[in-house]
């Protein structure tokens, strides 16, 4: 098996894109001091709405727009309770993840008439870059959202370090009271990033259901939102590191896929991303532990 072939790299990128988009949203929330572990539910919800809207309108791009809009609305269910009312963000997020699971499965049956997996020849998926004239290896079979995701890493890095609102956002996350004391509208920033994270999860969902594949199946987010949460934990507030963390996951998934092709059971492929993500988390924490050792002595 040759790992270093174009198709493997393409597979890595495909696996990375939805996680990266969701994780960018999570990173923004972390920068502004909002604990957002509702990425999983938002990702699933975005994937579902993308398919429904694309199916209804026949346009994948309308599907993407619908997913973004609907997931922004969904994320308001987090920002309202957790930012405005200061409810426990963990509990709210656990509820929202469950809500997304139930809502998508329920509406799927109501709209498409059956559960499980929905796909149809009429369902429009996102075009490949190859079809759009970008006929280069690795990117040829990716959706346009893949380069968008990569571009957003740079955009976010620029925003956070070079602009006034980016500076203020970082300030809010570092010291809430201090931000208030210098006259920043703290909750405005926190609502803002939670909703932007919703939009990014909408994109992530659309990429998953209209880019990576062209179908919706129940629970198809399959833990990617949680892996995005871990990627954020690993990378702090640095978009560059976030890209690396998400690529690590992409490699794990693509590698697992290969293993399956090589005859290993599917369960090993399923487990690979989680095991690798957990291992990365543990290694990073061990490295960080040196600094914390005094408190736990």
């Amino acid at each position, binding site marked *: 098996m040759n790992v270093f072939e174009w198709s493997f790299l393409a597979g890595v990128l495909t696996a990375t894109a939805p996680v990266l988009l969701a994780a960018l949203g999570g990173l923004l929330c972390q920068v502004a001091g909002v604990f957002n572990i509702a990425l999983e539910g938002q990702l699933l919800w975005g994937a579902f709405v993308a398919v429904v809207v694309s199916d209804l309108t026949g346009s994948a791009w309308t599907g993407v727009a619908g997913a973004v809009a609907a997931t922004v609305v969904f994320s308001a269910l987090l920002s309202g*309770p957790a930012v405005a009312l200061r*409810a426990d963000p963990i509990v*709210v997020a656990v509820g929202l993840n*469950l809500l997304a699971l139930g809502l998508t499965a*329920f509406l799927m049956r109501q709209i498409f008439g059956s559960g499980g997996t929905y796909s149809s020849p009429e369902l429009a998926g996102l075009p490949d870059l190859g079809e759009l004239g970008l006929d280069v290896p690795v990117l040829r079979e990716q959706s346009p959202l893949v380069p968008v995701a990569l571009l957003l890493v740079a955009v976010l890095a620029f925003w956070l370090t070079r602009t006034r609102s980016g500076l203020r956002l970082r300030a809010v996350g570092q010291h809430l009271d201090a931000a208030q004391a210098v006259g920043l509208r703290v909750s405005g920033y926190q609502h803002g990033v939670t909703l932007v994270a919703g939009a990014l999860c909408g994109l992530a969902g659309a990429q998953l259901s209209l880019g990576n594949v062209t179908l919706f199946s129940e629970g198809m987010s399959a833990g990617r939102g949680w892996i995005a949460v871990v990627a954020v934990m690993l990378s702090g507030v640095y978009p560059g590191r976030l890209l690396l963390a998400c690529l690590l996951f992409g490699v794990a998934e693509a590698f697992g896929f290969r293993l399956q092709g090589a005859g290993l059971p599917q*369960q090993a492929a399923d487990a690979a991303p989680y095991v690798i993500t957990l291992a990365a988390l543990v290694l990073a924490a061990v490295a960080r532990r040196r600094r914390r050792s005094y408190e736990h002595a």
Partner: protein
Amino acid sequence: MSAPAVAHRVVASAPVVAVAGALLLTTLVMLVVGVDPALAYPALVRGAVLDGNLEYTVAAFVPTLGMALAFALPLRAGEFNLGGDGQLAAGGVTAAAVALLVPLPPGAAVVLPLIAGAVAGGLVAVVAAPLSTRLGIPAIVSTLLISAPAVSLASYLVRFPLAEPNTGIAQTPPLPDAAHLPALGGSGYLTIGLPLIAALTALWLYADGRTVLGYEIRATGQNREFARYGGVRVGRVAALALAGGGAFAGLSGALIVLGPPHRFVDGALTAPGYTFTAVAAVLLASARPVVVPLTVALLTFLQVGGQGMEREAGVPSQLTQIVQGLIIVIVAVLATLRARRPR
């Protein structure tokens, strides 16, 4: 306090408001998508308690209560155990393996798989403890990440080494008769799992409120630094709480496998969503452990009733997941509103 005052307190209590609010919102969802609540709700009630369904509901109450303990016990120590599915599957597959592979005398043939299941669940869960107390990785993330491979492993075992030969179905062969949980009074669904889990719940409630360990677990959950300062070995207490939670989950898995249809069927443990029904129930009880069995009963009722609703009124049973999700969100909001209200 007068009777009306008591009634008022019950009606205005967080669980009641949360359930009412969630049902109201769910009714709105029904109306939006064109489901007639006047058909759906009676179907739900029938599905849960009438036409011989009550027995089935009570049977589903057992693993849900077990999973509620699996979430509630670590939560008292401040650790979120969201990895119930993995612990449940590990317990189930271990119990099945022991029952199938180890020849045991009657009695031990039931007890040993149950113990093995509990131990397996506890082991899966306890991995999260040092990650949390020593490395600062939140249990909410690590339990989830560990859960997925555990489910995959169970799935692999039941498809290959433990699979029933020549059927192509992902399930173990039927367990030997000696390993079947004794039925309760000739019932088709109910086993001694019910009194067992009830006794364990009572034991937990007693331990939580009236033992040294319970006190130290609660102190750890309320303020870890305070507990550490007071001489509580918080790392060990957190590990114990997580292991205990995992053991309840593993035991629940074992109870399912040793009950009808007496085999491990891939996905049968995790598909009904016991884990998150239990999470919703525990959060609904809002830090009052005594209420947990009641909230579990209520949500099991909704869960099982939902299946009846699907059969009878054609309303997808996933509606009950929506109710659960909304309940959790509303509980969180009520908690913060209550904390703000000046006393």
